[in-house]
């Protein structure tokens, strides 16, 4: 059969299987009814802190803002028992500033690249952006897939481009952003997850979204992607990581995502090596809840540095 876009779609869907939207939503609703208390809550909150890719992706970012972000990443709160975050996530031009602050600390520098967030530029430009970020010291690269190619059924092109970025990353880990809101359906999200994983290396990630569109990470699209990761792992033995990004603002949400991980992928993914939260305001809410568990008192937002809500 000639590989037309239509047959490519049919083959890929047949290969990875379809997803029922309502069923996924029912499944994840159960995660939200889990009740996490006491020590298990603190464990979950601290783990979430350690998984955070503390992110700033704004046109107005400055080296000064990056410095502040890095200090927060290294020492999220004055309680020394609180772990560092996993990474700081910045634009390519900020990589060297970030590296200067967190280099050698264990906190990674992640750079978005490939004409983030739209990806709408020449492939060779995207690749050179990746190489530049890595050369500047990025430990991790967050790329966006070619959604236009995906939606028109050019799956080989999507996958080949990801493979090219993998190569351009060299030693840096890659996170492949599917931009779920533009893929729209869970079928597409599952298909795109498999396309990406097919050319990723162990330790690379797939990621929900850029945070720059209306719909970002939800328990449901997270579930579709971690089920894809699970199936891929059971089939190939290759463990791919997962990064929901955007929209996770509260500690309660973060715990629900972690419950989904625990019950879908199991203990081996309850680590920042395999699971990350792409977030900015989430961190302070995690810290507030940790303090609340410790002291028994609800905390005011301005007790925490870099808080957006200072009212």
């Amino acid at each position, binding site marked *: 059969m000639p590989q037309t876009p239509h047959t490519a779609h049919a083959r890929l869907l047949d290969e990875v299987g379809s997803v*029922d*939207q*309502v*069923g996924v*939503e029912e499944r994840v609703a159960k995660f939200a009814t889990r009740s996490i208390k006491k020590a298990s809550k603190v464990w979950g909150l601290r783990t979430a802190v350690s998984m955070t890719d503390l992110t700033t992706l704004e046109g107005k970012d400055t080296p000064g803002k990056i410095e502040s972000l890095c200090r927060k990443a290294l020492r999220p709160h004055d309680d020394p028992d609180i772990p560092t975050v996993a990474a700081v996530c910045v634009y390519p031009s900020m990589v060297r500033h970030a590296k200067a602050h967190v280099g050698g600390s264990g906190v990674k520098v992640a750079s978005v690249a490939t004409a983030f967030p739209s990806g709408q530029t020449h492939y060779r430009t995207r690749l050179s952006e990746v190489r530049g970020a890595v050369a500047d010291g990025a430990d991790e690269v967050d790329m966006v897939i070619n959604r236009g190619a995906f939606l028109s059924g050019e799956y080989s092109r999507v996958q080949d481009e990801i493979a090219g970025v993998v190569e351009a990353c060299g030693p840096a880990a890659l996170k492949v952003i599917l931009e779920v809101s533009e893929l*729209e*359906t869970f079928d597409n999200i599952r298909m795109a997850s498999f396309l990406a994983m097919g050319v990723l290396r162990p330790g690379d990630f797939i990621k929900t979204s850029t945070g720059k569109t209306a719909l970002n990470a939800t328990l449901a699209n997270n579930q579709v992607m971690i089920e894809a990761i699970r199936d891929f792992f059971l089939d190939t033995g290759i463990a791919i990581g997962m990064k929901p990004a955007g929209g996770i603002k509260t500690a309660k949400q973060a715990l629900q995502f972690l419950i989904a991980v625990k019950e879908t992928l199991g203990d081996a993914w309850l680590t920042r090596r395999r699971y990350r939260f792409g977030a900015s305001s989430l961190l302070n809410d995690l810290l507030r809840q940790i303090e609340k568990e410790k002291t028994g008192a609800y905390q005011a937002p301005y007790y925490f540095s870099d808080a957006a809500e200072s009212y």
Partner: protein
Amino acid sequence: MSPPSPGRIPVTKTPKVYVGGAFVRSESARTFKVSDATGAFFANIPQCTRKDLRNAVEAAAKAGPGWARRSPYNRAQILYRLAEMLEARSGELVTSLVRFGAREADAARGMAVGVDRLIHYAGWADKYEQLLGSVNPVASAHFNFTVTEPMGVVGVIAPDSPPLLGLLSMLAPVIASGNTVVALASEKVPYPAILLGEMLATSDLPGGVVNILTGFRRELVPTFATHAHLRAVYAAAGADERKALRLGAAASVKRVRFADWSGKEWFSDSAQGLGPIRDFVELKTTWHPIGS
């Protein structure tokens, strides 16, 4: 019709029962003698046994899926065609009813009502679904609808009075929805039902959809009650028979309904309608998620 030639011996008919689209004797080879209203010998009628009932149920079960799959429009047309044929041959049926004691006027009116009743149910065949089924506004993200389905093989036990209108009134709503029927004709006046069988055979109704047995109620009612493959029984029955039917039905959770009209009530419009159709359909509710 020309008068019979003088001295000619008329050819008598051997009445047979109509099962699976064929005319058969009882497997037991038993018959019972039926006399007309004057007391003169009329014919030997098959005295069907429980094995005949079993065979008829097999025939009805075999015909069931095909009949149920017919479009309601097609079932309506077949019932209407049957009415056309009965109208054309009503003289023969009226004559047979009169011969067994009906007053001519009553018999003629009964036939007219019977034909009209068939047309009534022919019209229902493609309409009851919209009244009995529904789309249900559930609170979750599901499309949910209820449709009817035929129950399967239904036993019909006809009244003695009126023997033919009673039988027609009970058959029609049951087959209109796609059930198939094993009927027991009036024990006292079985012959019009045999004639009806002959007319069914030349109608468009597929063989096995309606099977008409003759015989003794006391012999056959217990088997109607207990035969597990009969999913429902529709009976014009007295108190003792009702109890027997219900007792036997319990073993297979069979649906039991009674035709409660008596005498003149059978002629009334109140002896027809949506009710008897509803009594012999199952309701099936299907859920499906609404997503993308």
